[in-house]
C-alpha cells in the first residue's frame, strides 16, 4: 500500500483525477456558473458566521449594548441641555423626562429585547454595512461615520496588498520554474525557505533599520511626503517610493516558501509520463514548461496562493503599523489603542468580507484554469 505523503495540502484533493471523466459533459459556461453560485453561497455563509461570531465576541462583555446606551444617553442629555423647550423644567422634571426618554429609546433600539433577538438585528446591520458611528475616531473629512473612516483607508490597503501580491505571484512562478533543480541557486532558495516563518512586519523592522535609519535612502514610513510633491507624476512617484519598503517586506516574508512549495509541485508534475513524451517529441524546454508543467500545476499553485494571501491579509495589520501606512491595518491599531469598539467590530467584519472576496476571486480563477472542477469538490 502506498500512502501519498508528498502533498498534504488542499490541492491534493482537488486535483484527484478521474472523477470528472464520468461526469456528463457540460459547457464551460454552465460549469463555471454552477461553481460560482456554489462558491458564493459557501462564502456568504462563511461571512455570516464570521460576522455573527464577531458580534458575539464583541458583545459578550456587553460592549455593544454599553455603547448604544451611551450614545442614547448622550443624545437625550444634549437635547435637555440645548433645546429651549426643556430649559424651564425643574431638575426633578428633567430627571423624569430623561428616564422616560431613555426607556422609549431603549425600546426603539430594541435594547429591552433579549440579546439573542438583538444579535440578529446587529447581524442585519453588519451585513448591510451599517456600522453606525465611531466612539472617538474620525475620518479625514471629520466624519464620525465608521463607513467613511473605512472608505478613507481602504484605498491604501488595497494598493499595498495588490502590488505586493502581484509581484509575489509572478516573481515566485518565474523563479520556481526557471531554475535548474539541484543547482547552487536552487539549494540557496531551499535553504532560505525557513525564513518565511517570520511575518512581514518583522522583516519590516530590519528593512526600516537598514534602508531608512542607516542608509537613509528610503522613507521611514507613511504613504506620501508632507507636503506632497506637485503634479500627478510627482505624486505617483512619491507614493511609489513609500511603497517600496512595505511591499518588499511582504514579498520577502513569503517568497521563499512559495518558491519552495511551487517548485515541489512543478517537480511532481515534471516526472509525469506525458512530459517525458513531450521531451521525446523534441519540444523546446519553454514549451514543455508552459504547456505540460505549468498548465496542470496552476490549480494547485492557485490554491496554495489563496492560502498565502489569506495569511497575508492577517499579517497586514502590523505591517501597516510598522510602516505607518495609512490603511485599514493601522486604523485597526489606532482603534485598539482607543478602545473604539464600533471601529474594531466594523474592521473585523470588513476583513471578513475582503478575505471572502479574495478567496472568491482566486476560486474563480481556479475554476477557469482547471477544467476538472465541478460543484461540490471545491
Amino acid at each position: 500500500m502506498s500512502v501519498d505523503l508528498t502533498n498534504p495540502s488542499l490541492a491534493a484533493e482537488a486535483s484527484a483525477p478521474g472523477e470528472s471523466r464520468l461526469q456528463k459533459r457540460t459547457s464551460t459556461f454552465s460549469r463555471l456558473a454552477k461553481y460560482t453560485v456554489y462558491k458564493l453561497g459557501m462564502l456568504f455563509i462563511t461571512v455570516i458566521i464570521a460576522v455573527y461570531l464577531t458580534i458575539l465576541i464583541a458583545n459578550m462583555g456587553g460592549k455593544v449594548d454599553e455603547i448604544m446606551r451611551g450614545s442614547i444617553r448622550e443624545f437625550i442629555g444634549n437635547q435637555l441641555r440645548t433645546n429651549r423647550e426643556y430649559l424651564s423644567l425643574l431638575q426633578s422634571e428633567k430627571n423624569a423626562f430623561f428616564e422616560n426618554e431613555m426607556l422609549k429609546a431603549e425600546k426603539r433600539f430594541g435594547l429591552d429585547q433579549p440579546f439573542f433577538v438583538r444579535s440578529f438585528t446587529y447581524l442585519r446591520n453588519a451585513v448591510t454595512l451599517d456600522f453606525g458611528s465611531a466612539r472617538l475616531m474620525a475620518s479625514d473629512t471629520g466624519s464620525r461615520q465608521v463607513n467613511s473612516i473605512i472608505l478613507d483607508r481602504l484605498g491604501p490597503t488595497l494598493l499595498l496588498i495588490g502590488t505586493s501580491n502581484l509581484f509575489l505571484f509572478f516573481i515566485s512562478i518565474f523563479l520556481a520554474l526557471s531554475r535548474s533543480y539541484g543547482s547552487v541557486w536552487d539549494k540557496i532558495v531551499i535553504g532560505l525557505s525557513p525564513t518565511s516563518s517570520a511575518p512581514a512586519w518583522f522583516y519590516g523592522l530590519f528593512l526600516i533599520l537598514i534602508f531608512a535609519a542607516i542608509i537613509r535612502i528610503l522613507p521611514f514610513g507613511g504613504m506620501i511626503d508632507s507636503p506632497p510633491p506637485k503634479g500627478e507624476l510627482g505624486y505617483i512617484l512619491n507614493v511609489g517610493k513609500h511603497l517600496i519598503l512595505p511591499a518588499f517586506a511582504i514579498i520577502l516574508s513569503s517568497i521563499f516558501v512559495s518558491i519552495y512549495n511551487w517548485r515541489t509541485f512543478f517537480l511532481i508534475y515534471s516526472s509525469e509520463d506525458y512530459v517525458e513524451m513531450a521531451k521525446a517529441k523534441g519540444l523546446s524546454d519553454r514549451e514543455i514548461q508552459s504547456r505540460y508543467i505549468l498548465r496542470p500545476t496552476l490549480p494547485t499553485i492557485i490554491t496554495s496562493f489563496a492560502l498565502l494571501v489569506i495569511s497575508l491579509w492577517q499579517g497586514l495589520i502590523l505591517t501597516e503599523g510598522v510602516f505607518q501606512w495609512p490603511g485599514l491595518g493601522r486604523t485597526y491599531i489606532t482603534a485598539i489603542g482607543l478602545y473604539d469598539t464600533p471601529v474594531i467590530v466594523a474592521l473585523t467584519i470588513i476583513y471578513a468580507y475582503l478575505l471572502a472576496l479574495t478567496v472568491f476571486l482566486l476560486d474563480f480563477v481556479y475554476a477557469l484554469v482547471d477544467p476538472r472542477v465541478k460543484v461540490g469538490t471545491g
Partner: protein
Amino acid sequence: MQNLKNGFKLLLKYPSALIGTLLILLLFAISIYTIFAIPYNRAIDLWRGGDSVWGHNPKVVPPVWVNWWRADKLPETIILSMEDENAQIERKTSTAGENLIITYTFDFQADEVPQDMIVNFASKYINRSPFVSVFWTTPDGREIRVTEQGINFTTSYRAIQDEKLKRRLGGISPDLALFDNPETEEIDVLKGTYKIVIDAITFEEDSVITKAEVLLHGKVYGWFGTDTQRRDLTIAILWGTPIALAFGLTASFGTSVFSMIFAAVGVWYGGWVDELIQRITEVSINLPFLSLLIMIGTFYSRSIWTILLVTVVLTIFSGAIKGYRAIFLQVKESPYIEAARAYGSSNTRIIFNYLIPRITPLLIPSLVLGVPAYVFLEATLASLSLGDPVLPTWGKVIQDAWQGGGAVYNGYYYWILEPAVLLIITGLGFALVGFALDRIFNPRLRDI
C-alpha cells in the same frame, strides 16, 4: 514506532538539522536556567518595579559588549557609597552635631562622559537639617565646587539640572565640564583618577547622614542594555525564552494533534460527521483569525494562556485538516484496517490505535514547523500592545522599543535587535529541524 526512531536517527545526517537541534537545545538550556535563576514571581516584580528597583541603572544604554569593537570606549556606571571599602570617612565632633568628610576616588578611563552625575543623600534630624558641600577634583588637580546646600531626609542632587554650577563652569553643561580637559579646545575627556569630597555638617546631637551616594550613570549596561525605564533587558530577554517556547510548542502541538484527531474521526465515521467537519473547516479557513484574536485580547483577557487557548481552538479547523483527511481516506481502505474491523475492534480503538499512528510521521514535521509561526504570533500580538500585561516577552520588548522608545529614530538598535535575533534563532532552529524531518518522513521529497 521503529519507523520514527529510524527517522530521528537519520536526522543526524543532515547538517542543517544538527544546527537546528543545537539551537533548540540552547533555547531549552536558557529556559531552564532562567526559571531557576530568576523565579517567575521575582521576574515579574522586577520587571514591573519602578525607580526604586532600577534607579541605579542608566537610561536606554546599549550592552557592555558594544565596547569590544568601539574605538572610543563608553563608560560603565560608577556607584560610590559610604559602605564601599575605598571610601574614606572622617568624623569630627563639632559644637552641636558632627562634621562628616567623605572622600571617594575613582579611576575613569572611558572616552565619553557618563550620562549624568547624581548625589543621593539621606539623613536623620529633628529640626535643623544638615548642610553639605560637594567638591570635585580632576586628575590634573583642579578643584571644582559642585554644590553647597541643605538636605532633607532624602535629597537627590543632579549636576545636570544645576544652573549655578553650569554658570561657574563657564556655561558648559556640567556633565561634560566635570570631565573636560581644559587644555584642548573642544570637549574631550580627561582620563585618570577623580576625587569627590563630600563635607557634611549636622547641627543636632542625634542627627546623622545615613547616605551620601555618588551615582555616575554610564553609557553601557549589562549583557543586554537597558530601556527607557532603566530596566535591565536581561530579564525580558531571558524570560522571553521559556514563554516563547511554551507558547509555540503548546499551540503547535495542540493544533496539529486536534486537527489530526478530527480528521481521523471524520474519515472513519463518514456521513454527516465528515460533512460537518468539512463545512466547519471551510468556514474556519476564511475567518479573519488575527482580527478575532485581537478582539478577544481587547475585550476580555490579555493573558497569554487565554490567547493560547483561543489560538488553538481557531486553528484546529485549518487547511491542515484537509490534508490529513486526504491521507486518512487512503489509509482507511488499507487491509490492516479491514482486518481490525473483521476481528471486531471498536471505533475508538481503530481511530486511535490504527489510523492515527499510521500518519504520525507526517504530524511530526508539521508540528515542528508550526512552532515558529506561533512564536511569531505571540510577538505579533505583543507588538499590537495585546501582549500579556505582566509577563516580559520578546514581542513586548520590540513593542516598547518601536513605539515607546522610538528606537529606530533614536538609534537604539540594540533594543530591537536583541529580541529580534532571539526570535530569528528560535524560528531558524525549529525550521531547520522541521524541514529536515519533512524530507525524512516524506520520502518522495528526499530524491528531489
